[in-house]
């Protein structure tokens, strides 16, 4: 009985988290559009290939480092190419993203 309660609580928590995530995701677009009108300078640019590749390959497992010296950007990307099986295109895009 105790196990069932814990399992039920877990599933409930998971469902709440999933719903919250979806709600926040949907709510994000209008908020961005609203701020666009207020401040053109703050208008978000379309995600670059590098930004997309970084989010799809690197951010899925870990947070991006806050900062790092540019002379190791190539080494980071080469490490990630092996670890995350990056395609050549994604490798180049991420390198350009990290070291524009």
């Amino acid at each position, binding site marked *: 009985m105790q196990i069932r309660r814990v399992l039920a609580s877990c599933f409930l928590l998971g469902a709440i988290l999933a719903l919250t995530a*979806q709600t926040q995701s949907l709510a994000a677009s209008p908020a961005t559009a609203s701020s666009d009108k207020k401040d053109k300078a703050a208008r978000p640019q379309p995600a670059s290939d590098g930004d997309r590749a970084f*989010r799809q390959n690197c951010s899925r497992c870990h*947070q991006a480092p806050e900062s790092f010296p540019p*002379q190791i950007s190539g*080494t*980071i990307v*080469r490490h990630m190419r092996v670890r995350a*099986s990056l395609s050549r*295109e994604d490798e180049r895009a991420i390198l350009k993203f990290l070291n524009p």
Partner: protein
Amino acid sequence: MSHDSYRLHFRIQRRLCTFALLLIASFVARAAEAQDTPLISGGVGFITITNGGNTTYLPVLSPLLAAPIGSHLLVESRATLIESFFPKGGGQIGYTSAPFLDLTFLQGDYLANRHLTIVGGEFLTPFGTYNERLSPIWIGNFADGPLILPLGTMGTDSSVGGMLRGSAISTAKFSIDYAAYFSATSTNPQFNAERSSGGRGSIFFPNAGLEIGTSYGRLLQGTHENFSGFHVWWEPVDSPFKLRSEYAHGPHSQGYWVETDYRLSRFGGPESALGRLEPIFRMQQTFRNSPDSSDGLPSADTQRADFGLDYHLPHEVRINTSYARQFSSTGNRNVWETGIVYRFLFPTWKGK
């Protein structure tokens, strides 16, 4: 202009062009080299685990070295140094300690072409996702790994031999990656591995943030055994919500884990006091099909629910906390975990 002076002028022009090209090439090469300085990364932390009333203190240092050689080679290695402080037991009061030093991997990677990387040395066994992706202390959300981790990784987590891996196909709508390996037996304490082979393949749909994959491993020494597994990761685009799950099956046991986390970055941004919080939840179950003391899973069916809360401090510092309740016919128990981890990343020398 005479014919001879024209030829002389042409030669000078050609040599100037050649010199200019060489100069540009050397600058390009320098620029490429300037980004390829070897790096040292990793994590240092202090973790406490209270399992069934016994508290263990674990100062941990896990450095990683990555050194590119030329344009196709990369040598990388990760080690783990732990000094465990745990109760003496047997009715004695006080703590005793034990050091632990492990070379997690030491591998050479040859980037053969756009689809293939050849790996040699000691490498993390490519079974499931946790071992390769989430095991570093500066990445994993919980201080300990899932219960089913030994299945498919042959109990050693690392293999000694060769591996082929890479991206088979990569388009805007989906990508497929693969890894296949063969490992020899190694009884060296720093390169401990079982004779085995196996691999993993997965397909990723970037628009949905969905990854589905499968793994297979075969133990090739002693009693030959097969291990299989599959994993599903769902990380919706533009959402901090993450769902990761794995299932693994061995000849004597099986199990799964499902982990969700949601960083509250929507509430004031990721740098706000609330946005640095990350609630985490993990559910695990293992099932014992037949007695086997060597596969690393609990001896009886086990259910466990982990409730965690991580806090991302500035400057790459993270605090991990979690509480788990574990249910088993051998006894129910509480598991409390706390930890603080600092992630470092810097070049081995200043470079250009």
